[in-house]
């Protein structure tokens, strides 16, 4: 369904060009759930935005392809792109509090998606009766959507403003917006990070149900390997704009290959009786504008070898559906 080949997105800055997504390759089948994991600033979000061609100015995609059902999105005209956004590929953002427009009623914001993609126009017929009919149809559909995503008493809440919603409800409303046109791919950019743990679980549940009932493919972006492990069929680990490891979830969790993935796993707290020492990865994410070594993880790596400093690196297929970018393999 989705195939990203050699995607490269850069941001020019005063310090030089920052490569936020560096030769990203990714394939995905319809209905699949992929987890994209990494620390903040590793290029996960930029990759998602690149798919939708929404990289904020002055960033731009310099090379690569994003094939969606065989069509290259990078080459689409702005108008064609607009027809795809929201309709074919929808996105859920990290912070529901700031993602809903504060000045419009929540119901109207959901309806807008239906409206602009003309979802209800087929049933509507011609003006003037059509317009009113369509409005009613759209409203009904919105309420149905709100019900589906678990917003209680949708009739009333249709007319409320975002600030009257709790964080979890806001995220549900955003999911409703994303679902409105029944997209085939849902990009969920840290959809649960800003929410309480119990709400997190509900939202993830909801996403899974959507995946099951509508067959929507989901890319879940998260910095929480635990969430990804629970939710996804396949995990993609990114570091400093590059994919460093990719593989089926169980495999990656049980047998992480890349030192970075290992580090990530070690730094996750777990609820167990036994006391286990948490081991954070030393150091910080390197300055993307100023990478010193070929392997971006070199100076934080516990398994670094002298050759890591200069050897050519690529994402190598190590069998079993697993790929890794490390000289060790």
């Amino acid at each position, binding site marked *: 369904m989705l195939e990203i080949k050699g995607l490269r997105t850069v*941001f020019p*800055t*005063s310090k030089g060009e*920052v490569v936020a997504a560096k030769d990203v390759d990714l394939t995905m089948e319809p209905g699949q759930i992929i987890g994209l994991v990494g620390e*903040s*600033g590793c290029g996960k979000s930029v990759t998602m935005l690149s798919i939708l061609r929404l990289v904020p100015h002055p960033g731009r995609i310099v090379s690569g392809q994003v094939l969606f059902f065989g069509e290259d999105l990078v080459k689409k005209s702005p108008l064609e792109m607009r027809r795809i956004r929201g309709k074919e590929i929808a996105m859920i953002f990290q912070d529901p509090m700031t993602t809903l427009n504060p000045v419009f009623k929540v119901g109207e914001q959901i309806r807008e998606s239906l409206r602009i993609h003309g979802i209800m126009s087929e049933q509507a017929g011609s003006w003037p009766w059509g317009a009113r009919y369509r409005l009613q149809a759209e409203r009904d559909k919105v309420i149905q959507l709100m019900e589906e995503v678990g917003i209680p008493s949708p009739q009333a809440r249709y007319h409320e403003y975002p600030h009257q919603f709790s964080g979890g409800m806001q995220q549900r409303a955003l999911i409703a917006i994303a679902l409105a046109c029944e997209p085939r791919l849902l990009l969920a950019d840290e959809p649960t990070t800003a929410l309480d743990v119990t709400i997190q679980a509900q939202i993830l549940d909801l996403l899974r149900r959507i995946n099951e009932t509508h067959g929507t493919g989901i890319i879940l972006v998260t910095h929480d390997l635990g969430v990804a492990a629970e939710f996804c069929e396949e995990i993609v680990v990114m570091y400093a704009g590059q994919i460093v490891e990719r593989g089926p979830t169980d495999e990656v969790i049980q047998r992480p290959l890349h030192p970075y993935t290992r580090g990530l796993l070690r730094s996750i707290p777990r609820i167990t009786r036994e006391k286990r020492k948490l081991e954070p990865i030393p150091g910080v994410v390197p300055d993307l504008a100023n990478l010193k070594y070929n392997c971006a993880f070199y100076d934080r790596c516990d398994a670094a070898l002298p050759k890591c400093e200069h050897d050519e690196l690529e994402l190598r297929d190590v069998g079993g559906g697993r790929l890794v970018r490390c000289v060790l393999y």
Partner: protein
Amino acid sequence: MTDSSLGTANEHQIVNPYLLELRLLTRNALHLWGQLRRHPTALLGLIVIILYVVSAIAAPFIAPYDPTEQNLMARNKPPFWAEGGSLDHILGTDQLGRDLLSRIIYGGRVSILVGLLATGFSVLVGALLGSLAGYFRGRLDDIVSRFADLLMAFPFLIFAIGVMSMLGPGFSNLIFALSFKGWVEFFRLVRGEMLVEKTKEYVEAARAVGRSDLAIIFSEIAPNIFHTVLVLATLRVGHMIVLEASLSFLGLGIPPEIPAWGSMVAGGRVQLLVAYWISTFPGLALALLVLSINLLGEGLRDILDPRLKLQ
């Protein structure tokens, strides 16, 4: 911000806190300068401002003539490129035959001062009262807010005419008249921002570690609203100079011997039909300065506002 490393070197040593402060200041200033250097418009603004300040300080050396030297035989002479103009007076002469260029150069001194002082007092009073009122609310807020409402509703020029008539013309009276109402705007702005900021987590956090209210206001919240105030203040500097001109229009400006852009613009208004330069060039000098101040102000905001930075 990337300067989390800046403080670490000194953390384990016991040093004179003032010295530390100073060291941090210079280091940060250098750091800021490094960023400013790469910001072309802000740099341009800074350069122009420096040129203005230098020319104001060095006026006696730069100005071709004494700005008060009259020559009644050479009144209203046009600038050199116009018919009848000469290179003796590059920008022409004014109604008393004084060299316009020299007056503009000298005029910068008073105008910059009028703008800075009037704005400075406004910011000082407005921000101080605004932060206290916004943070503590209560009776202080009530009283000052009502008073601010009163002043807002009071037409400025009427007030200014009154003050200048009552106290007589003079530089300090002018500053007083200008800043008497100017502070209200800053008061409102700071108070509003304060109301928003004080509910934020970092304030809670500061309170939790037991910082005093004043410390919270001035070292926690103030830095967060500073850039908003800065932007308004830069705009106000020019505005104050223009207001000075409006007072001059009503015959109540700065003492006439002191060249000031505002009064020069106002003084040339009758001649505007026949000698546009008397009024226009000081105005352009003013516009360019305001433009530069704003370029710098905006550049600083770009640099210091973390929201504009890449993650």
